[in-house]
């Protein structure tokens, strides 16, 4: 579609450009506070912030700042203001001007499926990269069956994927009770008659039935071809559980990321759980094979995105390079993970209540609650 010489760009197209390291100039016309809180990032993305209300009478401040001849994407919260500004830039004679369809709302919701690997017995493992928010979820496929781990709220994107793959959902699993995003696990499980699994220690207040995740109770996908093995690894929450998939991949949830470690304060008990977090990171994971490939539930920076957008790291390499795994003094570790933490995610208390089934916000309210970065790691500044 072209409105007055401007192009519409979708979140999927912007994601492709970022993953291909293409050059893009973004003119973000939201107010300064929203821009500083959260924006589109990429290795070759240059961001300029001029609020649309500074451009109501005169577009020239924008013309002065955006380089001529480059692809320019105008971005706002929803899209109205970006169209308004993009049209004026185009009218001033500039070309290659686009606006982001659906604005930052749609950016926050887009999931890019990235294949991690084939699994034994014909299975496949995919990582769904929620690039706008830094959340990662996973689908295990095998013999016509599927399991989703850490499902995001936008379940239709997984549904479409499963339909294309011709698989049926049998398990929806959450590594922990999330505080930064609303889980789609319960909704998608209900819709397909699948089991919804949660760690019982995180689920003491939930208002619904669920399957208990416990060590020893392995979960199978595809007539037992793929084993999803739960490992109790508390610290981010008291119930946090990791999964070993096909004896090769370690899904660490919000406990261990590629460049950081989980924060213990979002469920309100940082002081109590810091010992658990240390034990998980410095003992429990240490007993596992260094060759395991760590697949976390979040990334903090676009630099963590690897080939095709995949966020992954060898456990042994993380023990050498991740700053959160290299704090040898216990007191210093305690300080790092409990003091000077980044701000808590937007609406994190309400999000937890929603994930427990105690609150039932409308879809519109759920979207608003999730706006902004995830900030689940101690190093997310």
């Amino acid at each position, binding site marked *: 579609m072209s409105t007055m010489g401007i192009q519409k760009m979708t979140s999927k197209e912007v994601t492709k450009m970022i993953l291909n390291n293409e050059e893009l100039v973004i003119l973000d016309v939201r107010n300064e*506070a*929203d821009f500083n809180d959260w924006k589109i990032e990429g290795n070759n993305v240059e961001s300029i912030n001029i609020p*649309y*209300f500074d451009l*109501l009478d005169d577009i020239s401040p924008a013309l002065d700042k955006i380089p001529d001849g480059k692809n320019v994407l105008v971005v706002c919260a*929803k899209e*109205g203001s970006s169209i308004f500004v993009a049209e004026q830039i185009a009218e001033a004679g500039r070309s290659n001007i686009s606006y982001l369809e659906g604005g930052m709302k749609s950016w926050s919701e887009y999931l890019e499926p990235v294949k991690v690997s084939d699994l034994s017995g014909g299975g496949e493992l995919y990582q769904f990269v929620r690039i706008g928010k830094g959340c990662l979820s996973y689908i295990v496929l095998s013999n016509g069956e599927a399991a989703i781990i850490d499902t995001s709220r936008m379940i239709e994107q997984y549904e479409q994927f499963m339909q294309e793959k011709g698989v049926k959902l049998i398990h929806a699993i959450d590594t922990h009770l999330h505080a930064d995003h609303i889980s789609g696990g319960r909704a998608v499980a209900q819709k397909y008659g699948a089991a919804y699994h949660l760690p019982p220690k995180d689920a003491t207040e939930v208002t619904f039935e669920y399957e208990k995740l416990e060590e020893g109770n392995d979960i199978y996908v595809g007539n037992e071809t793929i084993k999803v093995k739960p490992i109790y690894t508390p610290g981010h929450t008291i119930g946090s559980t990791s999964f070993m998939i096909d004896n090769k991949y370690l899904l660490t949830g919000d406990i261990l990321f590629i460049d950081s470690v989980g924060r213990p304060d979002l469920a309100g008990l940082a002081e109590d759980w810091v010992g658990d977090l240390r034990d998980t990171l410095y003992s429990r994971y240490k007993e596992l094979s260094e060759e395991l490939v760590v697949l976390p539930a979040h990334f903090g920076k676009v630099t963590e995105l690897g080939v095709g957008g995949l966020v992954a790291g060898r456990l042994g390499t993380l023990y050498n390079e991740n700053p959160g795994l290299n704090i040898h003094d216990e007191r210093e570790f305690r300080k790092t993970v409990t003091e000077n933490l980044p701000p808590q995610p937007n609406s994190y208390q309400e999000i937890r209540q929603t994930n427990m089934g105690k609150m039932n916000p409308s879809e519109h309210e759920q979207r608003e609650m999730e706006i902004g970065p995830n900030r689940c790691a101690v190093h997310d500044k």
Partner: protein
Amino acid sequence: MNSDKMLDAKGLACPLPVVRTKKSIDELKSGQVLEVHATDKGAKNDLSAWATRTGHELLNTAEENGVYKFWIKKA
């Protein structure tokens, strides 16, 4: 709170609430107060940022049943 003029921007999406507010303020005299009602959540931060930027004084804000109300005194 008293106002000299009232702008109903309910149901309008960005950028219109700010565009209309600016137009209404332009029609007022210095010191007069404009009351704005809007339903777009984005208008909340944008109107106060715009007022700060332009030197108008945001006297008060309120929220009632999903309607955001603003009282802005023209500089």
